[in-house]
């Protein structure tokens, strides 16, 4: 398995493949999000209990899913990087972090806007909200660590260790609404006996979720390419600095 992964892990090959895939993936993302938005804002009915506020679910829930799923992907990439020492894994984790942090931010803000009409409060300190807020800080810590450590190799491995340490927060988020009596509603989609939502509401939700997931994947791929190019630029700069020093040394 590692052997076949290695074929895609070569940076030059990755650049070629991702360059070919990206335009199609971006088009698919735009299409899915457009359809999703139409379903969410126009073609779906208001909920009989929550009224029009249910439309906020179509941006809040996908953001929240991606906040956790993004972090889980990052943690996986970090583990792969630490075990197989491949820079592409570290680059993709670094690329995804600001995106995951942005989705966490959106989950918190849209959740807050939804919470006011639903529960009467913009914020409560229940288990689900608190653990998502903690996830946001963990994202920020991961990004900050990349910024302050100058050597790429050390930064890559240090941030990966931190990412894995922070990953213990993920089960807490997922199960917090089951373990504690929280204000936030329990899981109603990803359950063992199937979703508990009617299809007229489930469909826009799933389409929006798919659209945002594609967006995350497209942007991560794109930013990983940028990261690889940054590494190339840095090594070119290093080469030129060394060449400059050699010329100066020769000229005496």
């Amino acid at each position, binding site marked *: 398995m590692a052997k076949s992964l290695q074929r895609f892990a070569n940076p030059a090959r990755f650049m070629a493949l991702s360059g070919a895939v990206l335009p199609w993936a971006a088009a698919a993302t735009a299409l899915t999000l457009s359809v999703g938005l139409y379903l969410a804002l126009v073609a779906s009915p208001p909920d009989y209990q929550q009224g029009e506020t249910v439309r906020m679910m179509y941006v809040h829930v996908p953001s929240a899913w991606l906040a956790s799923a993004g972090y889980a992907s990052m943690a996986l990439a970090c583990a792969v990087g630490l075990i197989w020492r491949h820079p592409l894994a570290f680059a993709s984790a670094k690329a995804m972090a600001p995106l995951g942090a942005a989705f966490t931010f959106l989950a918190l803000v849209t959740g807050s806007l939804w919470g006011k009409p639903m529960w009467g409060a913009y914020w409560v300190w229940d288990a689900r909200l608190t653990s998502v807020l903690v996830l946001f*800080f963990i994202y920020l*810590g991961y990004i900050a660590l990349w910024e*302050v*450590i100058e050597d790429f190799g*050390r930064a890559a491995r240090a941030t990966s*260790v*931190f990412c894995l340490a*922070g990953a213990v927060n993920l089960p807490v988020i997922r199960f917090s609404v089951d373990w504690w009596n929280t204000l936030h509603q329990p899981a109603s989609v990803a359950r063992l006996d199937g979703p508990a939502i009617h299809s007229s509401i489930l469909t826009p939700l799933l389409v929006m979720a798919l659209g945002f997931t594609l967006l995350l994947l497209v942007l991560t791929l794109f930013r990983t390419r940028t990261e690889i190019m940054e590494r190339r630029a840095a090594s070119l700069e290093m080469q030129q600095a060394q060449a400059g020093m050699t010329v100066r040394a020769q000229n005496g």
Partner: protein
Amino acid sequence: MSAFWSLVMRDIKLAGRLGGGPFVGLGFFIIVVTMVPFGVGADLPLLSRIGPGVLWVAVLLATLLSLDRLFQADFEDGSLDLFLMSPLPVEMQVLAKCLAHWITNTVPLIIAMPAVAFLVNLETGILGPLLVSLLVGTPSLSLIGALGAALTVGVRRGGLVLSLIVLPLYVPALIFGAAAGSGDLMGTPMLFLGAFSLASLALAPFAAAAALRISVS
């Protein structure tokens, strides 16, 4: 085993000589606790309700401030490289340093607690559970803090990033610690706090050792 204990004693002695020993941390702790009534007002019933939480936060902040010294001095004079080559496993060395850190930084705070508790008008019955919660929970602060310190050793503005990465990981200790400190001795929060400390005892030395190898290579 004696290598372990000699490392603990070395760190305790060093902490005593450098940076004023336990008194600076203690002074900071007392000042932070004193700030709270200035900020929230001198309403005594309010203060005694938030007392355990305030004291826990102050202990947490005092611990945080002492963390970047955990490996910094050894990093600067090259002892850290020697430690990584020593026959004593790095994980055990981390444990030794955490123990020394806990003894020199946190235990003085716990000892001073009865004297400081009156600043927040702490009810007399609460002091017992609070002290127990601190004894049970603060080792996790040293252990998790060691991971953060190991990741940021020798980094510019490392102290700031250290706080940013360690505080989210401290949240369970604070939530359960403050709850345990205001409740009964064998209640759920205390048990969760104990579980959290034990888990960090099991995991943090390995993570911190890995981080040290990364930082020093």
